[in-house]
Each structure stands twice: as structure tokens, then as C-alpha cells.
């Protein structure tokens, strides 16, 4: 039964990773940009959330309502001020730009918040649990997973059935042809990045409620998001969700085998998928 429990806990952990990963999948799918500063934005928004909660006593729901639009605004400005200038067929300029941004953000956060670890109090939510027979699940991870499912499903519906979604998919398929169909691709890219970073506003609150965070932690979140996206298939929203579940399950199963194996088993699964199916599990290619 402990392995069934491990799978359940892994899926719940995957819910948090999915919130990291779907934004990255969206940015890669539309613009072929791997945002190296992705994890740093989670930490930045988390630290801003902790400071606001400390100063104003705002609860987690209020913080999400505040941090999601803030993240979206940061993403929109980032795209217009930096990424739209380096976007193109060569991925190197955007990699270098976001790598530089990652270093700058980490130093900025160290300057403001120091290297101390911090967390958000989840109150009773952090310790509440539900039981299904012998399986026990925390209420917070269940909420995180439910939010991840809603975000992924909602984003998928937007991409399929709205004018914005069609413009986004057209821009991803052929930038110049999209322009010739009347799509303002630069604005579409900015909105895609706004969505990607906006989602991190929610992920940041859950991350800070679940564990402690500190300015240098962004690298680990970036790796998990990146691995989830690669496992599922670069650019696929449901692929990123599935990759997150697989990564979460691999890590929890690894922890059950040996505490030292948790993170490592996640990396091993990532490498196996990369070697066996480099286009990812849910990619059509």
C-alpha cells in the first residue's frame, strides 16, 4: 500500500510542478524561448507575497489575487522590454538574456530580502488532511492539484476556442504568416508571457505555504519545470501537466526507496525520456 500512497503523493506534488511547467511550455511552444529566469520569478513573487502577508496580514487567497496580476504585468513588461527584441530563429540571444535576468533577479532578491529562508503561514490549511481508506492526503496539495488541473484545462480551452488562442497558435506555427493574417504577434507574445508569469503568482503562494523559500532557490524550480516540459513534450500544455505528474511520482517513489534518491530518481526518469523519446511523451513528432 505504501507504493500506492507514494503514487498519490507524487501526483499531488506533480500539481505544484504543473503550475511551474505550463507557463514554460506555453512560452516555448509559442516563441521557442526557454526562460532561464522562470524559477527566479516564482521565488520573487513568493518573497513579495511573504512581505505583503507580513505587512498587511493578507491571506493566501488574497495573495493569489494580488500576485497573479502582478506576475502577469511583470511578464508583459519583460516581453515588451527585453524578449521581443531578442526573439527569432536563433534561441541563443533569448537564452543569454534570460540567464542574465536570472542572475540580476537573484542579486536583487538577496539585496532586498537577504539569504534567509522564509515561508507563508498556511494556518490550518497546511496541516488539514483527508483520508481515503489507508491513503491520507493533505488538503493543501489537493487544492494545488485541483488548481493545476483547472489552469491546464482552462488554458487548453482558451488556446482551442478563442480568437486569442487561435492567434497564439498561428504565431507559434508561422510568425510571418500570422502577421499577414492580421495578428499583432508582438502583443500575442507579450500576453503569452503575461499568462506564463501570472500563473507563477499562484505557484509562488503554494510553494511558500508548502516549504521555505530563499533567493537562490529559483534554480531548482527551473529544473523541475524544465524536466516536466521535456518529459511531456516541449510546447504541449497537457504534455507539461503529464510530465509534472511523472516527475512528482518519480521523486516521491525515490524518496520512499531512500531519502537520497528522491530528486535523483526524478532526474533519471527525465534522462531516460530524453534518450528514448527526445520529443517528449505527448508530442506528435
Amino acid at each position, binding site marked *: 500500500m505504501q507504493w500506492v500512497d507514494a503514487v498519490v503523493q507524487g501526483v499531488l506534488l506533480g500539481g505544484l510542478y504543473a503550475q511551474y511547467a505550463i507557463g514554460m511550455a506555453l512560452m516555448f511552444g509559442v516563441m521557442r524561448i526557454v526562460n532561464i529566469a522562470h524559477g527566479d520569478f516564482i521565488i520573487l513573487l513568493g518573497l513579495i507575497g511573504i512581505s505583503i502577508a507580513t505587512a498587511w496580514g493578507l491571506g493566501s487567497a488574497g495573495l493569489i489575487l494580488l500576485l497573479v496580476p502582478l506576475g502577469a504585468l511583470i511578464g508583459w513588461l519583460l516581453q515588451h522590454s527585453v524578449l521581443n527584441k531578442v526573439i527569432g530563429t536563433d534561441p541563443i540571444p533569448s537564452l543569454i538574456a534570460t540567464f542574465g535576468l536570472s542572475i540580476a533577479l537573484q542579486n536583487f532578491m538577496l539585496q532586498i530580502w537577504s539569504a534567509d529562508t522564509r515561508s507563508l503561514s498556511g494556518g490550518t490549511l497546511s496541516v488539514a488532511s483527508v483520508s481515503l481508506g489507508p491513503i491520507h492526503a493533505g488538503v493543501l496539495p489537493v487544492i494545488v492539484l485541483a488548481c493545476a488541473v483547472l489552469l491546464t484545462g482552462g488554458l487548453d480551452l482558451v488556446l482551442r476556442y478563442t480568437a486569442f488562442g*487561435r492567434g497564439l497558435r498561428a504565431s507559434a506555427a508561422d510568425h510571418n504568416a500570422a*502577421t499577414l493574417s*492580421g495578428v499583432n*504577434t508582438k502583443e500575442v507574445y507579450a500576453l503569452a508571457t503575461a499568462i506564463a508569469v501570472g500563473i507563477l503568482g499562484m505557484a509562488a503562494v503554494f510553494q511558500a505555504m508548502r516549504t521555505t523559500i530563499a533567493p537562490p532557490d529559483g534554480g531548482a524550480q527551473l529544473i523541475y519545470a524544465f524536466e516536466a516540459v521535456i518529459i511531456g513534450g516541449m510546447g504541449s500544455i497537457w504534455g507539461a501537466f503529464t510530465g509534472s505528474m511523472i516527475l512528482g511520482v518519480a521523486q516521491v517513489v525515490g524518496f520512499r526507496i531512500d531519502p537520497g534518491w528522491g530528486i535523483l530518481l526524478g532526474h533519471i526518469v527525465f534522462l531516460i525520456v530524453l534518450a528514448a523519446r527526445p520529443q517528449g511523451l505527448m508530442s506528435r513528432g
Partner: protein
Amino acid sequence: MTGPILSARGVCAGYGDFQALFSVDFNVAPGEVVALIGANGAGKSTFLKTLAGLLPLRSGTVEFDGRSIAGIPTYRLVGHGLAMVPEGRRLFDGMSVEDNLRVALDRARSVPEDTPEWTLDRLYALFPILKEKRGHLVQSLSGGQQQMAAIGRALMSQPRVLLCDEISLGLAPKVIREIYDLLPEIRQSGTALVLVEQDVSLAQKAADRLYCMLEGQITLTGRSSDISREEIAAAYFGVHRAVG
């Protein structure tokens, strides 16, 4: 006589250090069909891209409906009624035929009440095969069907001028005939057509006027019916030679 809806004066453009167009003059009136002919590398597609705003002007002017469009982004020009069918179709792979059409329809300009609007139904009446295949991914269509979808997508933006870059390229003669037979229906609504075409006979039959380009310059222009094959050959190749 109606004034031109799209005109170019002394247009120079190019890629990096390479200048591809040298002082090109051009105009097209509402509802008129004009063909640009010339050999590979003559500058026809470059000129079309410059008109559509995909390439910046180095010098000269381009006016659409009497207003300069220099520096206006392509997507805005589409919103004003200047659409293009790009060479090689350039459909959105991974999307259905109808989604391809809707991308342009979502952003189409509003048309005056007295102008017939291009709707999905009207387009499907023009190209019935697209209705049949509307749920299919565009990459699963044949070359001719893809070309119809590319023309349809451009029509969805309700163009006043439609720039068509080599729409016959790579298609079977029967399919080319089918597509060219539908052009009168498109111009009927007052839409001007600019056809870049390598097939001189086809261009001469379809167009009211011809422009012949060679090495980035216009070497011949006139009414299609007034220009002889010898004149075209001389302008096309830059030498005087008889056409047999």
C-alpha cells in the same frame, strides 16, 4: 477613371547589403487585376513583401488608398484591407482548415454595408472542398486544397487589395485552372488583385495589365491585350529575341 488604391513610386528595398529593388513604380486600381511577371530573382516577391510591409522601404513611397503606408506594421495594413497570399501557402500547421480561416476572420476589418462581406459560408461556396475538409489539419490537404485555404484565409480579412505570390507554384495544370477560374468572383466585390506569376500565358490571360520585372526594375508595363509575346520576351530576358 478611378484612381489607384495601391501605388508605389521610386521604391528601393533589399536584404542587408543587397539591394533587390531599384526605383520601382507601380499602381493598381480597385477591382483591377495586375500581374507581375519576371524570371526567378527578378524581384517580384521582394516587391510584394515590400508592399505588404514585410520588408522596409529604403527609399520611395507606397500609398494605400491615398495615404502613405511606410513604416506601418503588416498586421495593421491587413486591418486596412491589404492582404497577401504568401509564396508556399504558409498555412498554420497543426491547426484545422477552419481555424486557419478564423485566425484572419477574427481580426478582419469591418466592411461597408454596400460591400459583400467574405463569410465562411461564402468562402465555402467558392471552395466547396474546404467545407468538406474544414475539420482536417491543413497539412493533410493536397497542394491545391492548401492553396485554396491560403487564398481563403487572405479573403477572410476582407481585403481591398489581395497580393498573391506565385499561387500556381507546384500545382497541377488542372488545379491551377480551377483556382484562376475563381479569380473573377473575387474581383467582383471590388477587390484588386496583384498576381506574381512565372507563367506568362496564365498571367496575360488573367490580368488586365502586366508589369514585367528584371533585376529589380520594371522593364515593361501595359495592358495585357496590347503587349506582344516578343515585347514580353525582350523585357523578361533583357534581350531582343523572337518567341517561336
